[in-house]
């Protein structure tokens, strides 16, 4: 490619970056708005931040969200990692259908997953709205993502390494703990991060499966938006944006983000093209 700069393209790119960040900037600015209705700018205040920590409903919602996300991350990371490893080695029967089964949750609209789990739990288990139900729903949509990230990494791993460990007298669990796991660890970490982001942010699937007493933060925010907003929502959003930005920055600095994110998309795309 000729490396000639194309000023028009660069201008367009800057415009799009502005488009991407404008809403977030506006959101942050309005978290310091005096106006309770938060339609127009009335003046600067930081009052909404301390009020946030006095808002019991919101803190409850946050706590529930964190609990669900923790369970979802742990279970989906463990299950997804093993699934990803198994798929990378491709040594079992039905591996082909397993591939399809993993991709299906990723190409199914969220709302379909939400309603199907709702009917499933109410009809078969007479369950509706428990924390466990939400956790199970979250695990279900996180597994695929973890599996695909881990599989991409495991495919790039030299299978001889594990064999070498076995030849040197390691037990199969020993080889797993000391050779395989450290090798796929960055992917497991990336998968867990992705699972956390998906779970923490999920509104659609959760809203169908949540009941009284299991209001997660996204559901709380959604209902606040629909029935009268306060700048508190902006304040909590600003905090979330800040946390995410810091996490991404750390991830970038550590360098793991780069390779794994690239591989993940790489793989998802190859997958989509091959399906």
């Amino acid at each position: 490619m000729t490396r000639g700069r194309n000023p028009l393209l660069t201008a367009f790119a800057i415009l799009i970056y502005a488009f991407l960040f404008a809403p977030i900037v506006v959101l942050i600015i309005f978290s310091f708005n005096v106006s309770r209705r938060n339609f127009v700018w009335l003046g600067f205040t930081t009052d909404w931040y301390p009020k946030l920590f006095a808002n019991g409903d919101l803190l409850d919602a946050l706590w529930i969200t964190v609990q669900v996300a923790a369970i979802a991350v742990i279970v989906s990371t463990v299950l997804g990692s093993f699934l990803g490893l198994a798929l990378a080695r491709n040594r079992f029967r039905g591996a082909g259908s397993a591939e399809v089964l993993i991709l299906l949750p990723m190409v199914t609209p969220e709302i379909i997953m939400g309603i199907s789990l709702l009917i499933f739990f109410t009809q078969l288990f007479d369950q509706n709205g428990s924390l466990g139900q939400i956790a199970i729903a979250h695990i279900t949509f996180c597994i695929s993502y973890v599996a695909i990230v881990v599989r991409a990494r495991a495919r790039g791993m030299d299978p001889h390494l594990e064999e070498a460990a076995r030849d040197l007298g390691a037990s199969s669990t020993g080889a797993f703990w000391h050779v395989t796991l450290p090798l796929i660890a960055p992917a497991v970490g990336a998968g867990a991060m992705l699972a956390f982001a998906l779970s923490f942010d999920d509104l659609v699937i959760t809203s169908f499966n949540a009941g009284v007493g299991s209001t997660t933060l996204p559901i709380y925010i959604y209902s606040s938006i629909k029935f009268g907003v306060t700048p508190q929502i902006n304040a909590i959003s600003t905090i979330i944006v800040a946390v995410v930005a810091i996490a991404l920055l750390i991830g970038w600095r550590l360098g793991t983000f780069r390779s794994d994110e690239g591989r993940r998309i790489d793989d998802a795309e190859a997958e989509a093209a091959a399906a």
Partner: protein
Amino acid sequence: MVWLLGFFLAPLLIIFVVSFGSNDATGHITLANPGLQNYVEATKPEFLPAFLNSVRYSLLTTVFSIGIGYPIAYWISRHGGRHKVLLLILVMLPFWTSYLIRTYAWMIILRDNGVANSILQAVGITDEPIPFLNTDFSVILGMTYGFLPFAILPLFVSIDRLDDALVQAGRDLYASGRGVFMHVVLPLTMPGIVAAAILTFIPAMGDYVTPDLLGGAQTSTIAKVVQVLFTSGRDWPYGSALGFMLMVITLAGTFLALRALRQETFG
């Protein structure tokens, strides 16, 4: 694997089954008189607008996402230099922040006395506030904004993978800049374009949050109808039928895109 079978595939089968059922007198789901009544109901003309809206919004969102995403991905890949990764992370940052929060931010910007109208009025472009919110414009804008990162990433991967030598060869054979793009770059990055299309079309079809928050009460899409039927409407069998149809349309769209790609690639 068992987990996915149990909690993904089984529930899907159940909505398929329930979609043939009905509500009994007490409001419970019954399969006493199974039949296609829900599907007959769903194809009534009054639901056509919702279906058409869903497809129209999703298609336009897909087109805009790729139309905007392709130049950006191209720019990052070819002009990004050593900042490539940082530029990609910047694209991803909005994606990692809550979709809901971003949609809400657009509400602040687009409402009648919102940021956009304040600026336009201050500059003197308009005296009366322009009603941005609750229009097709706001829904498509919100969706495009929300799903743009899904388009940029696969596009970036396929453009970044492109071999410079091929482009150079095209140049050497006296193709114009446009000719190289049309005959070399575009066909070679087609898998990325299709992946981007699929990754934006699917969530757009299932999205009810954006049509609800940015489209207002009048804007009806299938996902919104399904959501209402399952919450306040309490007609699950009917909702299941609509949901199942939504899924079929989505998968059909995905399938068509992949087939188009295959024909493109293998002639």
